[in-house]
């Protein structure tokens, strides 16, 4: 592309490897699940579906369960990773994740509200999405002092927002009848087991448009990550640009989270892994974070599907794997960022 430097050439093998994984992982994931499908069966089903649209077990499993689940896993991994990479750059803090502004607690509150009071009449997603976005804007409004919002005030108001919505969530859980409480608990743990084409239709448009703009704007993240004052001196309209980034990143995460529930640690981890592999320049790191996130999320869900019998919620698994891995990363790369 545009920068023929030695450093970038060294990255080419890594980029190619990641791209190959991005193609191979979903293909291999077709064969994983409680109902065993051999490669020849999968190929037969795919070819036959072109000729005759008759539905039998194998084709339902493949087209209505596995493929949507694979696509949704990748979509969610992509969204939370891209938005985390964005937040880490604008907050100049590598420990920030997509949930920093209270998004997850807002979405959790919305989901609980929906399950508790409208469980029979409407799907969970709209309220989860709505409250996720409301939480972010609440945090942002709270943090504005004299027209400016600093990193510290944003993080603090994110903590406050999280506290309020978490308290609200507990109130709902305390009041609600037991069978609905179970639904809330399951949602909070994050799961892809009920993935459907409908879920993809819900979240794909927002994720696609939001990510497209984030990727187009990504070089500006390098400028913003220098800090507000410096970015201004470099000729950037910091206030407006930050709102644009926060809005886009929140929308794509909210649309992913509202469909599958809380997915822990992927968003925090993935930008780190990507930066370790490919450096800090967001021109490369932002889109590649999305790709790496999609692969890791799918792998995590594959593990869930392999452990048939007890299907663990994938959000719990990503946390179980993610937290220790992250501890290892921090020890290993200490001083790489400070």
């Amino acid at each position: 592309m545009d920068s023929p430097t030695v450093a970038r050439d060294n990255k080419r093998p890594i980029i190619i490897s990641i791209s190959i994984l991005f193609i191979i992982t979903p293909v291999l994931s077709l064969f994983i699940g409680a109902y065993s499908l051999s490669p020849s069966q999968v190929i037969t089903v795919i070819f036959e579906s072109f000729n005759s649209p008759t539905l039998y077990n194998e084709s339902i499993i493949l087209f209505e369960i596995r493929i949507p689940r694979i696509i949704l896993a990748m979509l969610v991994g992509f969204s939370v990773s891209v938005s985390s990479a964005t937040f880490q750059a604008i907050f100049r803090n590598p420990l920030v994740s997509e949930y920093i502004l209270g998004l997850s607690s807002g979405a959790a509150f919305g989901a609980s509200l929906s399950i508790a009071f409208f469980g029979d009449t409407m799907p969970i997603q709209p309220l989860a999405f709505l409250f996720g976005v409301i939480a972010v804007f609440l945090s942002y409004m709270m943090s504005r002092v004299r027209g400016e919002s600093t990193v510290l005030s944003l993080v603090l108001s994110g903590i406050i927002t999280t506290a309020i919505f978490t308290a609200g969530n507990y109130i709902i859980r305390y009041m609600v009848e037991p069978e609905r409480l179970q639904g809330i608990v399951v949602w909070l743990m994050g799961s892809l087991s009920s993935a459907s084409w409908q879920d993809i239709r819900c979240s794909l448009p927002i994720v696609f448009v939001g990510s497209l703009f984030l990727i187009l704007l990504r070089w500006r993240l390098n400028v913003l990550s220098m800090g507000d004052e410096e970015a201004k001196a470099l000729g950037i309209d910091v206030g407006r640009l930050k709102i644009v980034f926060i809005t886009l990143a929140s929308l794509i995460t909210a649309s992913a989270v509202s469909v599958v529930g809380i997915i822990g640690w992927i968003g925090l981890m993935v930008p780190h892994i990507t930066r370790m592999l490919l450096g800090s320049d967001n021109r490369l790191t932002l889109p590649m974070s999305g790709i790496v996130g999609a692969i890791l999320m799918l792998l995590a869900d594959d593990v869930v599907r392999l452990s048939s019998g007890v299907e663990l919620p994938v959000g719990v698994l990503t946390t179980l794997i993610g937290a220790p891995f992250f501890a290892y990363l921090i020890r290993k790369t200490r001083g790489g960022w400070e």
Partner: protein
Amino acid sequence: MIEVKGLCFSYEPSKQVLKDINLKIRGAEVVSLLGPNGSGKTTLLKCINGLLKATSGDILINGLDLRRLKRKEIARHIAYVPQEHKTTFPYRVLDVVLLGRAPYIGLFSSPRSSDIDSAYDVLHSMGIDHFADRLYTHLSGGERKLVLIARALCSGAPTLILDEPTSNLDLRHQRDVLRIIKTISKSKGQGVLMTIHDLNLAMRVSDRVLLMKDGIIVKKGTPSEVLVKEQIEYAYGCEVSIFNIDGRGIIGLSL
């Protein structure tokens, strides 16, 4: 050219930080802003490039009112080298220098090969080509300062504002930075406004100096007009001696 007329600034109405500041920065000259800590030097620099809004008075950039200019337009006229700099992420030096091109790069674009060429050119002209692929966070303080100056030069702005470019640098890096500043103004015709604490260095490098105390410019002129014993003692509130060595005045503290 930058012209400041009757500039006043205060963070809170009761306490004025800058009072009736008047100054001009033309091309091809180095102007140093001197004065004790808290005299308003950094505040003045931030007002001039629009990071702080003046309470009253005018700032004209090539005759245009600063208040009417967009950030992008200000950045095309004035490049700023901040005093302290920490980045969170380990960017390559080339990527840091490229940020100087921001006022010329469209919202949805990234630096083009022409931007990358000009970044390499600046690094080359400063004799630090070999920094390009190193990580900015791995550089020493002096090396980082050179990179920030490269970033400012990469924008091609006719005026450079530097906030204490030599502070915390060792002797050799002080020399490197000041040599570059001299070259910028003499051979490229750019105007330089900087704050600096070392009066002897200011004397050597400046075409004009402005001496500040409590938000007021108490004296301006050539270094030899301004940096005389009485005025230094008045502005800084401490005794100094001026030694004459090889026909040059060296300012020393009386302890």
